[in-house]
């Protein structure tokens, strides 16, 4: 197999804080150092990219000494928490910005999809924009003409092909953009979470197309996503970036589990900001959520089969005697995996100005994975008080739910259920 992308000692340094005209003094300093034949005085002071630590230098290494090689035809996922350097890496490979040190060598045409529909102009028709977008991505005119029918069909916009795209819905624009990209046929394709848009049917098509691209075998794909399900589905191999360095590389399943387990070091205690995305009347609001065990100690994560308590702090303007509280968990593909609701259990919960609501769960029946917590609270069944689609992240580690050591099939089924089995022979 030949190597499609080879990255050697790649580093990228950014300046922290405001990049303003103040840099003129640094520019002069740099220039003076160069004139005297000395090293760049600012390249040494950069610190490791850890966003939760206070900065003590003025420069930061967004990427540091990355060494990677990707074989031709490989589909590689890139995962890592926010700010780990994923996008920077893609930006360097796609030549949007230059590295500070190191080299990237690539074989074949690179196309990057950091956004679909780049260069589209709202006043131009879909047809014109297909040409425009294709040209921006590096396609030749005759190439686009040859594929125009396929692109229009794939986007499903034959009816509107001569309508200015400003009349299109945003979803339709995305479809047109993705359709162009799908027929790009580069040797190396770089994709950054563009699949998160469009309706369900289109997402299926997009994933299908990605899979088709990846299974034809000679196309190399780099795919950055926070959606572990699609990484698992599309990429046999993954790279885990952490604080600007390659932490692990290997089969996606291993890397994803290790990545999720890494996240379990901080105890889950999430203050909820007033301005976080939420709906509801606001007469009462969720302000904090944490998880504790039976002894009241805060937990970092929960395990399958364990007992624990979800504690939620609520602030209300006036006492509300009877509320309904729901706590739900969504998996990485946004479907609900688990839900509890106070009125299912016949519980009556009241609110004072500041209240802590506790929901104790026994024998937790979800399999390993990372889940997003959704909180919802209403006054009986009438007024929605507060609804938070993204309140906290709950990591579930492997536990002994069955009591047999089996851990279920976390990739397929999120819920664990014990059953009794019997085999009886019929006479």
């Amino acid at each position, binding site marked *: 197999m030949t190597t499609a992308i080879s990255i050697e000692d790649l580093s990228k340094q950014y300046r922290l804080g405001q990049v303003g005209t103040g840099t003129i003094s640094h520019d002069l300093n740099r220039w003076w150092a160069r004139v005297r034949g000395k090293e760049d005085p600012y390249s040494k002071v950069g610190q490791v990219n850890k966003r939760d630590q206070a900065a003590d230098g003025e420069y930061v290494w967004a990427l540091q000494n990355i060494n990677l090689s990707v074989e031709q035809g490989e589909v590689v996922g890139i995962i890592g928490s926010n700010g780990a350097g994923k996008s920077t890496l893609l930006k360097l490979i796609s030549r949007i910005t230059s590295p500070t040190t190191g080299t990237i060598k690539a074989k074949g045409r690179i196309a990057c999809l950091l956004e679909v529909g780049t260069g589209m102009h709202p006043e131009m028709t879909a047809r014109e924009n297909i*040409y425009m977008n294709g040209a921006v991505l590096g396609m030749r005119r005759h190439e686009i003409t040859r594929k125009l029918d396929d692109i229009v069909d794939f986007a499903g916009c034959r009816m509107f092909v001569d309508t200015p795209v400003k009349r299109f819905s945003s979803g339709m624009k995305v479809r047109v953009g993705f359709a162009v990209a799908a027929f790009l046929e580069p040797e190396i394709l770089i994709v950054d979470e563009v699949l998160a848009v469009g309706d369900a049917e289109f997402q299926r098509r997009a994933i299908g197309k990605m899979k088709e691209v990846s299974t034809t075998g000679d196309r190399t794909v780099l795919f950055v996503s926070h959606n572990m399900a699609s990484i698992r589905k599309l990429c046999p191999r993954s790279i885990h970036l952490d604080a600007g360095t390659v932490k692990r590389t290997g089969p996606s*399943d291993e890397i994803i589990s290790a990545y999720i387990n890494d996240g379990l070091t901080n105890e889950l205690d999430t203050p909820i900001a007033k301005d976080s995305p939420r709906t509801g009347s606001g007469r009462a609001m969720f302000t904090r959520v944490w998880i504790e065990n039976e002894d009241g100690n805060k937990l970092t994560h929960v395990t399958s089969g364990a007992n624990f308590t979800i504690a939620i702090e609520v602030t209300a303007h006036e006492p509300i005697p009877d509320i309904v509280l729901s706590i739900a968990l969504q998996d990485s593909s946004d479907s609900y995996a688990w839900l509890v609701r106070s009125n299912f259990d016949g519980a009556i919960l009241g609110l004072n100005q500041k209240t802590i609501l506790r929901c104790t769960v026994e024998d937790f029946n979800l399999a390993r994975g990372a889940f997003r917590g959704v909180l919802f609270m209403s006054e009986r069944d009438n007024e929605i008080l507060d609804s938070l689609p993204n309140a906290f992240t709950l990591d579930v580690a492997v536990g002994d739910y069955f009591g047999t050591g089996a851990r279920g099939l976390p*990739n397929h089924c999120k819920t664990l259920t014990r059953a009794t089995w019997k085999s009886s022979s019929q006479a």
Partner: protein
Amino acid sequence: MPTRTATLSSLGAQFPAVTQRDEVRADHFGFVFMSISQDISTAADAGPDQQAEQVWDLVIQPKRHLLDVNLKEIWDYRDLLFMFVRRDIVTVYKQTILGPIWFFVQPIMTTIVYLFVFGKVAKVSTDGMPQILFYMSGIIMWNYFADCFNKTSSTFRSNAGIFGKVYFPRLIVPLSQVTSGLIKFFIQGCLFLAIWFWYLATTDTIRPNYWAFSTIWLLALMAGMGLGFGILFSSLTTKYRDLTFLIQFGVQLAMYATPIIYPMSILSDTARRILWWNPIAHIIEAFKCGFLGTGEASMAGLAYATLFTIASLGLGIVIFNRTEQTFMDTV
């Protein structure tokens, strides 16, 4: 019972194997996945000799050489240049009633205003030329330069969105702006020529001469200078935004330092000597001389303007080339 136990244990022996394969890569849900590639390698264990054999199509390094402008790449992206030009021309006057007629309205209105302000009120001499031709020739020439300069000088800032998402030779954008400016110039030039022909046929005040053949060269100089200055300023403004303010009124002031609304002949010797160093003055004079038969076209002046254009374009490209590599970090 012994038979049953045997069956169960044989099932048990199969199950763990299935479970494990499932964990790694499952496809009994109808998906067909490719097998995991076994050769998970990093650059470290690929070995140096294997890499030496490879021929790379693309090598990305921290700093390119200053003069390393990839002309072939720009040629490869010529369709994009075409699309940008098309976009500039087609979309400007979409959803307007007059449409492309607006291309004419602007120089006509400006000419009328100049006719009134400088011709009737201030009574600035036009060297005996019909005022309408005198002003219009200056306006369309100057507009082309100002257009090239203004538009290209905001290349990085106004295209940061698209530049941040996709790579193509950045020089395509200023080049497309110069080209679409040229198309606009030709449209306005037709208007000028129509009026010019009318005067040529009905009066004998204008005396065109061989200098008119230099028009193509003059346009190239205008385009080159506008582009050179534009990309130079565009590169500098990514870091030092002060320059944007300078550009805004600088272009307006520069117009008065160029013989657009007045002929060179009304100036004092000192003023003329100073104005000689303005390269655009020579271009405008050569144009007016060619079409109207007035003004002071000189080979020396044009040679100076040519050198000036080459220098500014060269400097512009070098600085632009340097800036385009990292401007996304500072813009």
